[in-house]
């Protein structure tokens, strides 16, 4: 093969002691489509930030290792440097001006001025930016770029009102119009597209590759990767796992590499536990308008006394489910709790039905940071059920304090006293306060989202053990949503995987990594994947 266009050599990066990339090697050849895959937090974004010289990298002490382009080490300090080296990126969020035509959007900030006498006079007085523009030439350039993508749409159409798929193409056209474009990064380009639009995009990618442009393709859709890429690199927890020729591998193998062996760790008891046949919560066709975590028709049944895990990649809608049922974000659909229909978009009513919720956004939603632990713990129970009050609706400070003291002991909250403000606590202890607040409601059903996010290992285990204890000893039904598959597998009875806003399937905690990986990528019809978790 020819010389590498781009090469990452032993690149490492850590943010304040937390290593997010460890000795990653990565290379890409001209005209190659190289897929990059990994779970959230695997290091994909960090790699791309390094490639583009984003300030977030350089303001936190840069990185170790070297980046080479065409055999020569390069020092990319800013996105402008990256552009000068012929690296372009198409972002997930479109950066287009709706009121401009396609050609104007493609040529933005690279407009071609007219060369004539008037212009030269004007520009000598007012500077270059006062020159009038050569729209004809700009349109011609735009046409060329669009033709390279097999786009027949007229270049003078306004971007406003274009279908999403077309906007994506305009973005790509803008990148390839830049002279000397050699490497194009596409970050989850198909996530917002319909199937036929995605199809077209993949076709355009292939034709760009034939024209000699190298493409880094970041996607979680395994079928697309198999379909379009030449090689695939798998990252896991900031480490390089494998780089394979796509023709020599399969979706199952990639899924397995992506998830790794970590799935089967740390489970103290067997996965098979006799589950009740009774349905505690039944969710039918739930749609939740949570930005970037949209649920689009979730059907799910939660059995009495079980711990149901909800997993899936970020942005697929797993967090939307609990938030929707609790009325934090607008929801529609049917949710039945214990045979009784739950009103949606009515947080208070849901809380009254003994449903408690520990939010994934601990500091944003979960806590009053400027208030002491004790007020935080009793807050919901007081407001919803009217407990901890005495005559005239005044708070019963003594009872609150006593209850909080007990919770501090029970949950092992490390604090100076129950009067300490929660903003001063560590992440793990803050999480325990959130759990304490939920438990004070004496819930029958507990939603816990991302319970261990941003918490150190020791505290993680404590929280998980606590959830397990609540389920085993008190028979509490728990729905736990988490991005960390390992922790779902360690305590859940069944794990529902959410992909693109829907339940892709339900797996047992001891299912194979490949099964999880495939399901997260939305492949459910493979033979190796079976429905249902409990045997």
């Amino acid at each position, binding site marked *: 093969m020819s010389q590498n266009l781009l090469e990452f050599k032993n690149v490492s990066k850590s943010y304040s002691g937390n290593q997010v990339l460890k000795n990653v090697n990565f290379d890409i050849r001209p005209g190659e489509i190289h897929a990059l895959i990994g779970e959230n937090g695997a290091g994909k974004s960090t790699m791309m930030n390094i490639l583009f010289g984003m300030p977030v990298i350089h303001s936190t002490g840069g990185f170790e290792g070297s980046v080479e382009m065409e055999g020569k080490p390069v020092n990319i300090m800013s996105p402008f440097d990256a552009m000068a080296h012929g690296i372009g990126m198409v972002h997930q969020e479109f950066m287009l001006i709706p009121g401009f035509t396609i050609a104007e959007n493609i040529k933005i900030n690279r407009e071609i001025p007219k060369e004539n006498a008037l212009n030269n006079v004007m520009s000598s007085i007012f500077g270059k930016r006062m020159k009038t523009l050569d729209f004809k030439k700009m349109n011609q350039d735009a046409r060329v770029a669009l033709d390279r993508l097999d786009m027949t749409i007229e270049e003078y159409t306004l971007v406003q009102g274009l279908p999403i798929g077309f906007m994506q193409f305009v973005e790509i056209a803008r990148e390839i119009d830049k002279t000397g474009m050699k490497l194009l990064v596409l970050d989850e380009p198909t996530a917002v597209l319909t199937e036929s639009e995605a199809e077209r995009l993949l076709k355009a990618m292939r034709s760009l590759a034939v024209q000699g442009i190298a493409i880094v393709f970041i996607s979680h859709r395994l079928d697309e990767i198999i379909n379009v890429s030449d090689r695939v690199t798998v990252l896991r927890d900031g480490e390089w796992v494998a780089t394979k020729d796509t023709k020599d591998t399969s979706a199952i193998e990639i899924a397995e590499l992506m998830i790794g062996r970590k799935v089967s760790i740390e489970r103290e008891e067997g996965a098979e536990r006799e589950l009740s046949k009774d349905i505690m919560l039944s969710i039918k066709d739930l749609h939740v308008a949570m930005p970037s975590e949209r649920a689009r028709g979730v059907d799910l049944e939660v059995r009495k006394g079980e711990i149901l895990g909800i997993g899936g990649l970020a942005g697929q809608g797993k967090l939307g489910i609990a938030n929707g049922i609790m009325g934090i974000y607008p929801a529609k659909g049917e949710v039945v709790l214990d045979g009784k229909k739950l009103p949606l978009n009515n947080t208070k009513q849901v809380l009254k039905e003994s449903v408690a919720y520990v939010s994934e956004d601990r500091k944003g939603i979960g*806590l009053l*940071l400027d208030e002491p632990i004790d007020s935080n713990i009793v807050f919901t129970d007081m407001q919803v059920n009217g407990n901890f009050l005495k005559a005239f609706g005044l708070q019963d400070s003594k009872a609150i304090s006593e209850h909080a003291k007990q919770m501090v002991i029970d949950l092992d909250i490390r604090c100076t006293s129950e009067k300490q403000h929660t903003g001063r606590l560590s992440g793990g202890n803050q999480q325990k306060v959130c759990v304490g607040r939920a438990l004070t409601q004496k819930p029958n059903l507990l939603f816990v989202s991302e319970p261990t996010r941003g918490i150190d290992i020791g505290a993680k285990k404590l929280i998980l053990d606590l959830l397990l204890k609540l389920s085993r000893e008190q028979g509490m039904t728990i729905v736990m949503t988490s991005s960390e598959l390992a922790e779902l597998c360690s305590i859940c009875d069944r794990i529902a995987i959410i992909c693109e806003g829907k339940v892709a399937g339900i797996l047992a905690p001891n299912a194979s990594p490949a099964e999880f990986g495939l399901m997260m990528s939305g492949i459910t019809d493979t033979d190796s994947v079976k429905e249902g978790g409990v045997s």
Partner: protein
Amino acid sequence: MDAVKSFFKKVPIATLIIFGFWALILIVGFFLDFRMTSLFSDTIQRFGMWGLFVLAMVPSIQSGTGPNFALPIGVVTGLFAMVVSMDIGFIGFNLLIVSTVLAIVFGCLMGWGYGKLMNAVKGSEMAIATYTGFAATFFFSMIWLLYNTDNDFLGWFIGRGLRNFVSLTPFGTDQILDNFWQFEIFRSTNADGELIGGLVIPTGTLLVVLLACLLMWLFFRSKHGIAISAVGMNPMFAKATGLNADRSRVLANMISTVLAAVGIIVYAQSFGFMQLYDAPLMMAFPAVAAVLVGGATAQRSKVIHVIIGTILLQGLITNGPPVFGRLLEGADITDAVRMIVQNGIILYALAQMKGGGK
């Protein structure tokens, strides 16, 4: 040493600066042969006059609406209640009680509407509140002009409309609360052996203000009060607990408006006059400044901030002019000094705020 350090950490710099200024004025006043008891009497009287206005800041700040810059809404409402009660013919304590009851009723209505408005303009509450207060003042100016009364003490001798300065003496309400159980301490004799005035305690007014403070303190320890605080601190948290943030904000602004309406009645009786037309225009600013001086922020306030802030700011504002006046022998810059101090405080406190309206 640590105790001193932690004290300075807890007490906001604005509080210290104002305290320093006030202390300086008192020291200068002492050397200029001012009677200390007289200076303190003035301060205490002004504390009584302004206490309820400053207390009106607490619920609106706690609910996340920010300081109630629309205080004139409550003030004109209270004035209207007084005008109506006077016109009907009440005098003395009856006038005080009837106008207070009316002020509460009207204040609830106005506060409800104002709260609704605040919910509609989330993010720019303070600017909108300021201009709403101005608008209310001038709207009521028209009402004062058009109000037809047969009461000669209330209306002009000729034509329609109300006077701009109504003395409360003919109504028997002049200082009626101030004089209730009033007593004087630290009386002394002068060089000639004559008894001169000591520290005057306007018991009735102080009791009203302190009772209101106590009720406010209790309210924020009740379920509804706690809910309002939570809404102000973290609207998403409140939402996740099933609280209706908008309703809490309306309730808080109703309380605030009612306090302002009752506040002007207390203010007027102590002052001895009722001022109509554009007098309420700028009343919000000293009240906002006081609560901020007391240690509140635009997001958090407590009753203790009200008490500390009102004493300090009113002490400075009332004691400053006479002392400066004598010090500078006639150069009348005292009002300018007062304006600079008062508006400087507001500017300083607002500059400390983070973010926009919330």
